[in-house]
């Protein structure tokens, strides 16, 4: 590769990084602006301040933000765990066993994935109110499965197909019991796929907004995106911009950590699931 070409690719690469990071940098910058700086028309704050963070973490807005953060973590983790468990059995069967209906299961997962969330929310809103699931954790965990389960089944069965299953029998021939062979050979091979699927499913649940605003009414179950969307300032006379920016940064931190640590696996999971299935 010539020097000129090399320079070109480096410039293009920097372009991509700027494209991806610019809006994130802007919301971070905004979160450090003081009330007087919010309307300064500049990208950067003139004075660096933590006041927005103290507003949402210890101040007036913490009653709105902290329970929502707890709800988001709890609901998303439980929904992820449940869908991974269900998808793990299903993907094992799809990758390993021969039974009629495999195609139906994969097509159903695809159909559920393209389902408009708002079409599910309308009847659930009514039903949840009648049976007492409205504004509760299970009331969100159940519909979240419609987001997390399809992609979990697709990505996990893609991963499971690549496991050399004969190794388990080889171990048995060498004298291991069925359970030992499964635990010592298959589990370590399957674990990365399960883990990657869990991260992708968690992203999807963490991103939800429609269920969050429609199926909750108080801080009992309202997740962060919904709380942010309905946040109108600690008092009627206050502009919530700085507080929203700080809250946005806080909910983005877990995502950034996951992406930085597991980017290679996440890319493999996303593209395997969608392109290879």
């Amino acid at each position: 590769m010539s020097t000129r070409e090399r320079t070109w690719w480096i410039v293009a690469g920097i372009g991509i990084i700027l494209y991806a990071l610019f809006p994130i940098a802007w919301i971070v910058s905004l979160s450090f602006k003081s009330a007087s700086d919010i309307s300064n028309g500049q990208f950067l704050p003139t004075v660096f301040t933590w006041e927005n963070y103290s507003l949402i973490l210890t101040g007036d807005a913490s009653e709105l933000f902290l329970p929502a953060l707890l709800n988001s973590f709890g609901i998303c983790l439980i929904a992820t765990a449940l869908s991974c468990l269900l998808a793990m059995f299903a993907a094992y069967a799809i990758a390993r066993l021969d039974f009629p209906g495999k195609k139906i299961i994969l097509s159903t997962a695809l159909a559920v994935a393209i389902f408009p969330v708002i079409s599910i929310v309308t009847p659930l809103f009514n039903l949840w109110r009648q049976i007492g699931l409205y504004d509760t954790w299970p009331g969100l965990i159940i519909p979240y499965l419609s987001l997390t389960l399809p992609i979990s089944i697709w990505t996990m069965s893609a991963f499971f197909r690549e496991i050399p299953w004969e190794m388990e029998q080889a171990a048995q021939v060498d004298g291991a019991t069925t359970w030992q062979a499964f635990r010592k050979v298959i589990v370590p091979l399957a674990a990365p796929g399960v883990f990657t699927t869990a991260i992708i499913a968690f992203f999807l649940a963490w991103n939800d907004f429609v269920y969050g605003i429609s199926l909750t009414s108080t801080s009992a179950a309202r997740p962060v995106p919904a709380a942010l969307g309905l946040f109108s300032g600690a008092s009627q006379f206050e502009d919530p911009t700085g507080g929203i920016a700080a809250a946005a940064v806080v909910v983005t931190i877990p995502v950034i950590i996951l992406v930085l640590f597991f980017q290679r696996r996440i890319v493999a999971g996303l593209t395997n699931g969608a392109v290879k299935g």
Partner: protein
Amino acid sequence: MTTTAPPSTGSATAAPAPARHTSDRVRAERRLGWMLAGPAFAVMLLVTAYPIFQAIYDSLFSYRLTDPGNRSFVGLGNYWVVLTDALWWQSFGVTAFITVVTVAVELVLGFALALVMLKALKGLRPILRAAILLPYAIITVVSAFAWQFAFDLTSGFVNSWFAWLPGISAETDWFGQTGTSLLVICLAEIWKTTPFISLLLLAGLAQVPDVLQEAAQVDGATWWQRMRKVTIPNMKAAIMVALLFRTLDAFRVFDSVFIMTAGANGTETVSFLAYRQTIARLEIGLGSAVSVLLFLSVVLIAFGFIKGFKVDLAQARGEK
């Protein structure tokens, strides 16, 4: 050590089994298959099929949650009300506009990003991959806020940065009219979801055989010719899958609209209309009709893609 026995659970019987025994085993395998996959299948049906049937049923009634006593059967009346209302057609138009614009731009931009990532220096690649994953993983609400605050009259920097452009001044109110509001909504959507298309296309690019590329190069084909005659035809399946997923996703656009304009200035999308009827106005009957129509639109788009563009999902998944 190798074994030729077909993969199965339980004991490893290597010897060819008698016919009766095999059919027993086949049956046991089928049963185990459904026992393992059944629960996931049942949950998927429960969380989607059940609500959509309930929505179809509810859409046949005149039903307000604030006035449940007066629930009455009106047949297809709600659909008539919705389909003869200009509001439905306007929100349908807005949704179609956002879908077409964002998907078209994302396809071109995503392809460019994928090409750069493919050719980028080895050392740069992990950094690019991490960077491009961030917009995908950022929650849509946060992305919508970032773009809204950037263009906002009081908190934004866009007006002061781009004041040199004709038509932009310190007083330009981007969210004051339909066109500019939709522009910012589209920008936010494009930023957020281009990475997804880009990653799918990158996977598609990686599947194009190098041999073909080299052969074309030896024959003296230019970069553009190789792109048109070798690269794009070979990754047609990946392009179609990316297009299908993104189109269906774009048609359901809701979060950005809710955050940025709350449907003001004629920016209401179909999803937002359904939300407003049901959750805000408690018109369960009418809202359900809108939900069902949205569902039908999505099904029609998917069907149109699979039939019209001959998207073969099996082929896209690498099964020839």
